[in-house]
Structures are given as structure tokens and as C-alpha cells.
């Protein structure tokens, strides 16, 4: 019933292969993510760190990205982080997400999203995520989310 993220840093090989394919698809083909210049900095068991662009197309009209853009990134990377903590591939879906916006993200800069899967219990994964500027590391947003592991019904896989 409990699938606690292991203290080991190695990802299950099958999950690793899936993430590798997902990275190639997201980077080159996906209509949303291919514009973000996603770059994996760390992909370990239950933890990830990606850098990405803050494109002007998500701007709020004042030179900063709309805060909703950060939620798009956080939901995506937090979901990906759940996969790294699994022993076998299972579809997941976001149950809920709470995000605090600590500062504005300027369009045109690069930022870093770092996430950690805190625990998986009763098929619920709890994840924490942060976004900071790549240069200087100033915190922009923090988020806490819950994901169902082994999503059923119409949602047969992650929203990612």
C-alpha cells in the first residue's frame, strides 16, 4: 500500500527509459514544452531539477510572466518527479495543487524548477516544488501538490 520513495538515487530502469523518451518528445515535439527550452539538471529517484526559459508569450503585459505560467511548469515537473519515484510505470493525475507566488519572473530569463516527491502512500504521491531564477537563485514560487498514482477512468496517464 505504501510506496515510499527509496533513499537510493537510481531510478527504476523501465521508468528511466520512459523518462528518456518523454524528454525527447517534450523537448522537440510537444506544442507547449518545446518552446520552453527544458534542460534536465538532475533526474534522480524522487527528485528532479530542470532549467527552462520564461518566454514572452506567457507575459502579463508588464514584462513579467503571468503567475499561471509558473503553475504550468510546476504541475508538469512535479508530475514527472512522481514517475521517478515509482517502481513501475503507472498513470498519474494531479488531484490538487497549491502555489504561492513569491516574486515575479521576468520574461526572457531562465529559471530552475526543483521538485521532490515526499512520500507515496495509499496511491497518493505528495510533491513539493520550487521555481527560482537560474542566475542568483532568487525564489519565485513554491508549490505543494498531491497526485493519484494509477489514475483510472478517462485519465489513463499523466497530464504531462
Amino acid at each position, binding site marked *: 500500500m505504501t510506496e515510499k520513495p527509496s533513499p537510493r538515487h537510481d531510478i527504476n530502469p523501465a521508468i528511466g527509459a520512459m523518462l528518456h523518451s518523454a524528454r525527447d518528445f517534450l523537448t522537440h515535439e510537444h506544442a507547449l514544452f518545446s518552446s520552453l527550452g527544458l534542460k534536465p539538471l538532475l533526474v534522480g529517484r524522487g527528485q528532479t531539477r530542470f532549467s527552462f526559459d520564461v518566454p514572452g508569450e506567457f507575459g502579463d503585459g508588464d514584462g513579467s510572466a503571468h503567475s*499561471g505560467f509558473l503553475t504550468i511548469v510546476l*504541475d508538469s515537473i512535479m508530475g514527472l518527479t512522481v514517475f521517478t519515484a515509482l517502481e513501475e510505470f503507472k498513470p498519474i493525475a494531479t*488531484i*490538487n495543487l497549491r502555489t504561492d*507566488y513569491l516574486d515575479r519572473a521576468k520574461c526572457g530569463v531562465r529559471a530552475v524548477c526543483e521538485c521532490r516527491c515526499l512520500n507515496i502512500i495509499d496511491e497518493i504521491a505528495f510533491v513539493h516544488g520550487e521555481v527560482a531564477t537560474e542566475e542568483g537563485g532568487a525564489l519565485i514560487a513554491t508549490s505543494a501538490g498531491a497526485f493519484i498514482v494509477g489514475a483510472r477512468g478517462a485519465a*489513463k496517464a499523466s497530464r*504531462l
Partner: protein
Amino acid sequence: MSAAVENRLEIVRALSASPIARWLGYSAAIEEGGLVHRLGFAERHIGNPAIRALHGGVIASFLEFASEVEFSASLGRPEKARTVSMSIDYMASSKAQDMTARVVIARAARRIAFLEATGWQGDETRPVAAARVCLRIGEPARE
């Protein structure tokens, strides 16, 4: 169309000019006296192409933006509001199609406003997601 309704729609048009509004395919109309917000579906809103559902973060962005517009329209002027925090519950899977939302202002104080946004696809009685949004309103004193 009354002057008040025309004014609200003018505010919607002004706020819809931002890049994020265009990216969301955002629009709004007045129905039964209240604003009804719409996400105009586009392929870029898809998260996982295997299931052809709206990305959860896109839904969150839409409800957050709709909350900002709702608040400004209630004031009768395009007020710049910054989101402090938002929490969202995903209650049903979404489809690759438009999403509609209504927003209720739970409380608007001098500096902070609390709003509740609900989004659905087709059937308003079957919400896809519900968000609570906290906005910082007015011009903060710069430190």
C-alpha cells in the same frame, strides 16, 4: 446594452490584450448578468497527447486569469492585481475542448481579495476544476 455592461466588457477587452490571455485563447461574455469566462481550446493546451486532455497547469492558469478579470470588472476599471497564491482541485478529467468558468468574489478587502473560480466543459453541474485565488490589489507601498 447598458453603460455598466459595456464598461465591464471594455475592461475584459483591455485585459484580454496581454500575451497570456492570447495564449490561453481567453474571452468572456456576460450571461444572466454575470461574466462567463472561456478558454478557447488550442493544441498547445494539451498536456499528454496520449489522453488528449487539457494540461492541469493550463486549467489553473485560466481560472487564475479569469479571477483577475472578474475582480477588475467588478471594480469597473482595469485594476492590476497580482496573485499571491492559488489552490486548485481537479475534480474530473478534462477533454480537448473549450472550458467555461464562473468566478465568485468571496471577499474583497482594501489590499487583498479572495475569489473562487469553477471551470467546466459542457455541463456546469459537473465541474472539472475549482480554484481559490488570493489577489493582492491596489498599488503596494514600495520598500
